[in-house]
């Protein structure tokens, strides 16, 4: 009985840059990262930021212009895709339309030197793992989108690759299926202990599946951390705004003592954990809409503001509030809160609410 196992290995980039053809701007600019074996790591970022390029360099479909790529500790920088032990699930699935599901799943095994019997056994096990046991004889065109997706996963899994790559795997599925399939992918990854690198531009999807998220912007890494890190302590305005929403306020750091920064925001003074690189002087604060508490106007330790708009959206209330630092977006879980448009209020910042960010 063949079983699909995992040969999970780590992936490491050392100062990798990719410049396409005669283009002047790098698609990926001097990136260094380390992905531990057995983890699911997401590359997240807006369209065009270089996620796919990064992924394709792991696969060996693009060659790095400079820098070094290691898989499982071995240098594979110059190795073409064929010779790397990495499988990829494509956005379009890329099932071979002239081969049946079985033939598709066996395809890679045939080139890996397995004996014929084992090829058949493994392919069967692979299809079973994704729940498509009876579908071997069908052509890809006779499957639904979700099933095609699973065949593509099985085809990649049976090779027991060191690293499994997904490029926006859910973008061709309808909304309902997305949640289901992404959970399936996560389940299989955890069950087999695979190293998975997963590309998406959808922050919700990234937060839901990942052990770690690498946020990219403009060809560089904006931040690298666990979903919680990114949400609670975004390193810069871009990450703060890209993952969830955030209000950014200009502030001044007055002093830093024992890692606690004393920050002045208008007339307020707030104490916060200092971040790596913070120094006294002008800085920025990021505050999630749900981490601002509304008080009646003039309450102590609040920032004055005027409500421009109040919207009832069912589960909570949303406010646009004019402050001396521009508009702030605030949500309040209490739908019965007595605030109306036109009213003046005070914005309160509870502990663990605001976060200092770099520029």
């Amino acid at each position, binding site marked *: 009985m063949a079983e699909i196992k995992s*040969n999970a290995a780590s992936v490491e980039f050392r100062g990798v840059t990719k410049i396409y*053809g005669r283009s002047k701007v790098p698609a990926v600019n001097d990136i260094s990262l380390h992905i531990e074996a057995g983890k699911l790591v997401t590359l997240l970022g807006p369209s065009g930021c270089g996620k796919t390029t990064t992924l394709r360099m792991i*696969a*060996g*479909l693009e*060659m790095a212009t400079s820098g070094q790529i290691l898989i499982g500790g071995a240098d594979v920088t*110059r190795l*073409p*895709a*064929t010779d*790397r*032990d*990495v*499988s*990829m699930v*494509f*956005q*379009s699935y*890329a099932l*071979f*339309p*002239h081969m049946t599901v079985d033939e598709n799943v066996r*395809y*890679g095994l045939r*080139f*890996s*030197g*397995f004996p014929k019997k084992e090829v058949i056994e493994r392919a069967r096990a692979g299809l079973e793992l994704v729940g498509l046991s009876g579908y071997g004889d069908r*052509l890809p*065109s*006779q499957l639904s989108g979700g099933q095609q997706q699973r065949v*593509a996963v099985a*085809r*990649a899994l049976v*090779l*027991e690759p060191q690293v499994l*790559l997904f490029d926006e795997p859910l973008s*061709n599925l309808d909304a309902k299926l997305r949640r289901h399939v992404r959970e399936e992918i996560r389940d299989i990854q955890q069950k087999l202990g695979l190293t998975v690198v997963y590309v998406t531009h959808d922050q919700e999807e990234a937060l839901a599946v990942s052990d770690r998220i690498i946020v990219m912007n403009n060809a560089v890494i904006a931040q690298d951390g666990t979903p919680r890190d990114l949400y609670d302590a975004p390193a810069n305005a871009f990450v703060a705004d890209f993952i969830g929403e955030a209000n950014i306020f200009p502030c001044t750091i007055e002093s830093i003592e024992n890692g606690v920064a004393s920050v002045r925001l208008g007339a307020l003074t707030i104490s916060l954990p200092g971040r790596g690189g913070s120094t006294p002087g002008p800085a920025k604060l990021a505050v999630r809409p749900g981490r601002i508490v509304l008080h009646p106007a003039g309450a102590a330790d609040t920032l004055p503001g005027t409500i421009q708009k109040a919207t009832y959206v069912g589960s909570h209330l949303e406010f646009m509030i004019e402050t001396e630092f521009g508009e702030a977006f605030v949500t309040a879980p209490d739908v019965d809160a007595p605030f109306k448009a036109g009213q003046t209020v005070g914005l309160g910042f509870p502990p663990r609410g605001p976060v200092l960010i770099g520029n």
Partner: protein
Amino acid sequence: MSVTKRTPSLHPTLVLWATVGLVGYCLLPWYGLRDNFFTFSWLLDGWPLKGSVAPALFLVLQGEKLWLAPIGILLLVPFFLWGRKKTDPLFGSLLIAVGVVGLAWFLLQGFGIGLRGFSWEWLKAIFGDLKIRQFGMGWGAVLVGTALLFLLTLGLAARGAVGGDEFVVGSIGFVIATVGLFIFMPILQMLASALVTQDGDYSLSVFFQKLFSDRLWGIGCLTGGPRCGVAWNSLFLAVLVGVITTLLGLVFALMVTRTGFRYGAVLRALTVLPIITPPFVIGLAIILLFGLSGFFTQAFAELFGVQPTRWVYGLPGLLIAQTLAFTPIAFLVMIGVVEGVSPSMEEAAQTLRANRWQTFVTVSLPLMRPGLANAFLLGFIESMADFGNPLVLGGNFDVLSTEIFFAIVGAQYDQAQAAILALVLLFFTLGAFYAQRFWLGKKSYTTVSGKGDAGVHPHLPPAFRNTVYGVAGFWTIFTLIIYVTIFYASFVKLWGVDFTLTVDHYVKAFAVSWNEFGLHWRGSAWSSFWTTMEIALISAPLTAGIGLITAYLLVRQDFAGKQAFEFGTMLSFAIPGTVIGVSYVIAFNVPPIELTGTGIILVLSFIFRNMPVGVRAGVASMSQIDRSLDESSLTLGANSWQTFRKVILPLLRPAILAALVYSFVRAMTAISAVIFLVSAQYDMSTSYIVGRVENNEYGIAIAYSAVLIAVMLAVIGIMQLIVGSRDIGRRREDGNLSQSRTNVDLPGRGQPALTGGG
């Protein structure tokens, strides 16, 4: 991976090519005298010791042709890489060195030492006269040259060229080498020989005198003189034909797609006929209808009591014949373009309050411009290159292609004159080719999106539609008359004189009988017929092969110099057959490549003349196959050769079929290059037919043509069956999977892929 691939101590590709090279060097005859190439008679002919059939090794060991010795030594060098990995820098560098030095030496000795010792004066100056001579290269040399080439590409791949892919680098090297050898080299040699005077000297003044002579550029006809220069004649005719065929093509395309016309399939089928008809057959039919004893001429003369004239010979006849012959090509180009204009654009225009006519003029037509340019270019080049029609119909209206022919086969035998005329012809076609690319470069709109486009094309305004119907109807009836005439005339005793029905012509050409040796092919046409079939069947798969490989490189690979590569491979598309013919005669008549009078030269001329057909068919359908298919195959551990074999080729069946069919058809119908290259032993159908026409044996010529048309129809049908198509069951509607258009559909699919026989 749980199974690790065993790594042999010497790279398998290296072993393969080094062995091939050594076999060529040590076992096969180095020189290729006629029989050595296709038979093994050399085995009994004094091999391995006798000079003319000896392998290089034995020549060198006997102290002859010592300049071959370094090549043998170089072939052994790769074995020093025993135990080294491909990633070892020495591996690549050493192979590159072997390849470069080996090929350079190989070519130097080949071109430097010819039939009369040293070919170049400076070699004589350095080394004195060489008494030994060399013949054309044979199997041994071919294998050694190939081996050196692929050792070089392996070395380049090992050093990381094109992502380190052996197959891709090897293919690029192969295509460059063959295109260089069989397209660029002959053309360059032709250019060189244009400078040579009758006495064998080089002279620029004689060259310019010939180049700018009145014969070519005279404008006598404008000032009342009898004739204009041939260059002007050709240009004038080609522009007219280009414009008319483009307009007609557009008319037909509009009729099929935008008038609710229900017999589009019939029309498409009809367009196949002229494509499988040797172009000059149309010219013949024109003579039968409008010539001195032509049907219509006679009827007209009788009705109005006037003398029948030879009015059709010359510009009018050529114009009619070429328009008939090349309109289908324009149609096939235009229909692709007309269908490609996304209906949603036109619908958008209509919702913006443009009426049908305004929509057509402001949106549809501008979007079709690239297609119009393409169709014009094809018509222009075809007309320029057409040889058969001017030969049978030209009268006193001389054009470049026939002029070239008479310069080389006529009493004058003036190779330089032929080369100069070919140069002018090449200048026109390349000029048009370049102008079109330049123009298109600025105005190419890709309107065919990957997504399925709902919506239908709006119909033409009624008045316009009726004009379209009228023109198309007239053309269709005329075409039918032409074909009926051909068929009927093949059964008539002597057209215009004696209309009694007979099968004499068929008997004379295709009689078969039994004698003591079995089946006896008695008819006079059999010999050329079988030769043509053989050559066409050999060259079709080779053409398709090299065309598809080239298409694969163009569509799927990125490498430095790709644009130049593309330009080079598509160039032969703009080189008229006549030019290829002349340049082959000039280039391949002497060592190191001595091919005139063989069947190989015919095959080669077909391969490299028709290569763009294969490339275009391949590019068209390969762009339909999503690139992620190859990439997923690569990440699944297949190498690029396996990917090409298992994923791309199976999906390319329609393109393969199209390429096979077109290269076969063109090999059967071509005349312009062939007429220079045929020999007594290898005569081709077309040149045989033209020969009969020149002898006024119209009956046989026409019967033979009818048989050719029938045979081609049959062969196309059979190829269709053999290549077949596995239904991959794509739902046609689901547009987001870009590989949906892969079912066999002929000939509409390979639309831009063809140009007529010329």
